[in-house]
């Protein structure tokens, strides 16, 4: 395969207070086997050599599992390929002469730190409000004591697979974190281990989500389309059900009761 010459339009913003703008760069002779982030590495090496400030972007595992990476590429979260995190995107998806626009996630709850790097700590604060089972180390019964039907475990896994990248928020016209929040609530609501705290969990996590300035979910569905782990709308449906149960029956929070 031949190599690519490309025009990049990259969002440059020094820090949270800077207004930021798109800056145009040329990169030449990019192998189609290189990954998208390797293409940015090449640009950065070049910029450093020229005494310019390299482009800040988040990354770590570069195999689609840590959730660090993520930017808007030509108007799509994580770029043109479905079910793919930015780090797994390869340059063979582009053509010689292409212009590629690269921007950070845009959401009120994700302030820009620098260039393409945003602050996603709001997602962690949602998880810290109940995205766990209250079990101390050493207090667990034998792992096979509680049976979990295979389909239930498998379905819980599909929610648990969320890598916390934030693409769902970025893809959503309302910048809602519903899919992210639902993935965790759904996982723990399905499993017997998570059931005792389910009502408190859903109420607390949703409250935190709202406090963080994420928008409301209006069932657009863009989140699932852009999610690199292809987490489905079924999890949002389960979250809604959990929430309605928690609100309708208003179970006492400190002394959980099974409603259904």
């Amino acid at each position, binding site marked *: *395969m031949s190599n690519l010459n490309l025009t990049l339009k990259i969002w440059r913003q*020094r820090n949270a207070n800077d207004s930021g703008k798109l800056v145009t760069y040329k990169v030449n002779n990019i192998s189609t*086997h*290189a*990954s998208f982030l*390797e293409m940015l*590495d*090449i640009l950065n*090496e070049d910029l450093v*050599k020229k*005494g*310019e400030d*390299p482009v*800040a972007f988040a990354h*770590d*595992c*570069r*195999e689609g*599992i*840590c*959730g*660090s990476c993520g930017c808007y590429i030509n108007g799509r979260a994580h770029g043109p390929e479905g079910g*793919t995190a930015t780090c797994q995107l*390869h340059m*063979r998806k582009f053509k010689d002469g292409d212009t590629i626009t690269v921007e950070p996630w845009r959401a009120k709850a994700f302030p820009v*730190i*620098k260039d393409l790097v945003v602050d*996603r*700590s709001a997602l*962690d604060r949602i*998880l*810290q*409000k*109940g*995205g*766990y*089972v*209250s*079990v*101390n*180390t050493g*207090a*667990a*019964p034998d*792992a*096979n004591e509680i*049976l979990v*039907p*295979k389909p239930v*475990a*498998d379905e*819980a*896994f599909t929610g*648990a*697979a969320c890598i*916390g990248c934030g693409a769902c928020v970025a893809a959503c016209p309302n910048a809602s974190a519903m899919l992210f929040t639902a993935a965790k609530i759904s*996982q723990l609501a399905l*499993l017997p*281990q*998570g059931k005792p705290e389910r009502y408190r969990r859903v109420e607390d996590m949703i409250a935190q989500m709202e406090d963080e300035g994420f928008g409301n979910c209006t069932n657009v569905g863009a989140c699932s389309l852009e999610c690199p782990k292809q987490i489905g709308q079924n999890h949002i449906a389960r979250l809604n059900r959990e929430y309605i149960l928690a609100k309708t029956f208003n179970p006492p929070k400190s002394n959980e009761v099974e409603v259904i």
Partner: protein
Amino acid sequence: MLDAKIPNGNLQDKWKNHSFNVKLVNPANKRKLDVIVVGTGLAGASAAASLAELGYNVHAFCFHDSARRAHSVAAQGGINAAKNYKNEADSVYRLFYDTIKGGDFRAREGNVYRLAEVSVKIIDQSVAQGVPFAREYGGLLDNRSFGGAQVSRTFYARGQTGQQLLYGAVSALNRQVDAGKVKLYTRHEMLDLVVIDGVARGIVTRDLVSGEIKSHAAHAVILATGGYGNVFYLSTNAKGSNTTAIWRAHKKGAYFANPCFTQIHPTCIPASGEYQSKLTLMSESLRNDGRVWVPKKVGDKRNPLDIPEEERDYFLERKYPSFGNLVPRDIAARNIKEVCDEGRGVGPTGQASYLDFAESIARLGEDQVSARYGNLFEMYEKITGENPYKTPMRIYPAVHYTMGGLWVDYNLQTTIPGLYAAGEANFSDHGANRLGASALMQGLADGYFVLPVTIGDYLSTLGFAKVDGNHPAFKQAEDEVKARINQLINIKGTKTPDELHRALGKIMWDKVGMARTADGLKQAIAEMKQLKEEFWKDLKVSGTGEELNEQLEKAGRTADFIELGILMAEDALHRNESCGGHFRLEYQTEEGEARRDDENFMYVAAWEYQGENQAEKLNKENLVFESVKPSQRSYK
């Protein structure tokens, strides 16, 4: 001679007795004690959560923007535990035995037995947290066999076991953050250890967003900062994985054990060009059905499908007729490198061998092959753009895991009192070679079950006064860190951190990699010393210290990697034997197997820092085998 403080008594009773004999801290006093945990991978997150549950004030640090992104998240295959759910006569003793033998008799019996013993509780704990392990239709947990073990003792969650275990541990950590018992510092990099009167008292960190340098005081410090495989530049580790925390601790007095013990995984997707930034693992299981070959002729650039059978060299099948493609990791890796060095490597870079499924597809059908390896084939195609059903995969070995690390005693305490090391950052349990699915087990064993017991023993002796953060040692350590950052920024040379890191990686891979020789190692040491000089003369870092600056982060880490590289080569040079992942060409049997020298090298090499550019001092911990008799590994 180093004392590992292994408790007396029968192997089976050591940990029980020790747990009973340790001194306890009264619950009311625990809240007066501060513990710093650096790292939120499996080892760090599990330790931080468990210590906070006990009542200590925990301060947890990671350089990632979220605790959940620690590199443990990338582990695929699974986690071992001696549950014997399959009625296969598995037991704590068998897991212990397999681990000792797999480590080529270079690990401590006491530690490894404890590891096997607590392994069962790890699975219980994770399941209780809501980790969705694979299940059978009856609702029970599923197991698979892994890494050549004869029993199925590996628990897994699809190909994302590390991710799920980490999210479980991080959820426990989050619960303690919510409870106010853990203060979590993300995007903070530890750049030095504070030692006062020989005792660890805190750390110095850089806030990676603001650049602020700050010190933090505590009664004890735990380093759970992961492995140092990135000293080779290219490895299966994440880009940020580094040695800085343990290396700086080493320079403050913590001994570094067996630095040269590195695991190289034979089947990774090869580098495609100079720009390559990391390597991706392809599961070991592929060798069950794939055949490894290269062309017989040097420089044969034909399409693999055009190369007739008789012009192919199935070199593993040829050299190891009984094991064939299933020889152990180290043998496979070394042979692949050898044929590439002969100029018979394939693909655009010539640094690869084929892993061919044509015969399996003909025998089993594409559906069957897809059922076994579909997700791996897909991942391969995403990265290479080639369809492995149609054309053979290309694979090449890559650095994967480091068995060496900070020396710790049975309590996981380093040679600096008050400083502990856990997970891949310590050297404790895997000897010269780690078995598949055992790193996750060890990280969680250290964090959930070992440290909460052993650290209390230490803390109970300290008294409960707050550690005085105003002690001049803190300010001094901060000043040193600041001076070093300024130095890095002010070199204003011409080479980027990545360029220098790549140069280091090349030296390490060529001469301190899979096949080592005394001459090569000596050359490597000379070249790395030169590289170190070049680094401090010609480095170019853009930007300032007061902002998010990845170039600066990389520069600091590369500087530490160069020094560690030199020590790894020294360690490899001194160890005049081959064992596990350490292969010296001079020490092999006629069949090309590792030749151990138990008479002279049955010890842990623990290196002691002696000052800038000084040769390090070798300390030894003799290994005693009371339960297992060391024997020669054999692949016949």
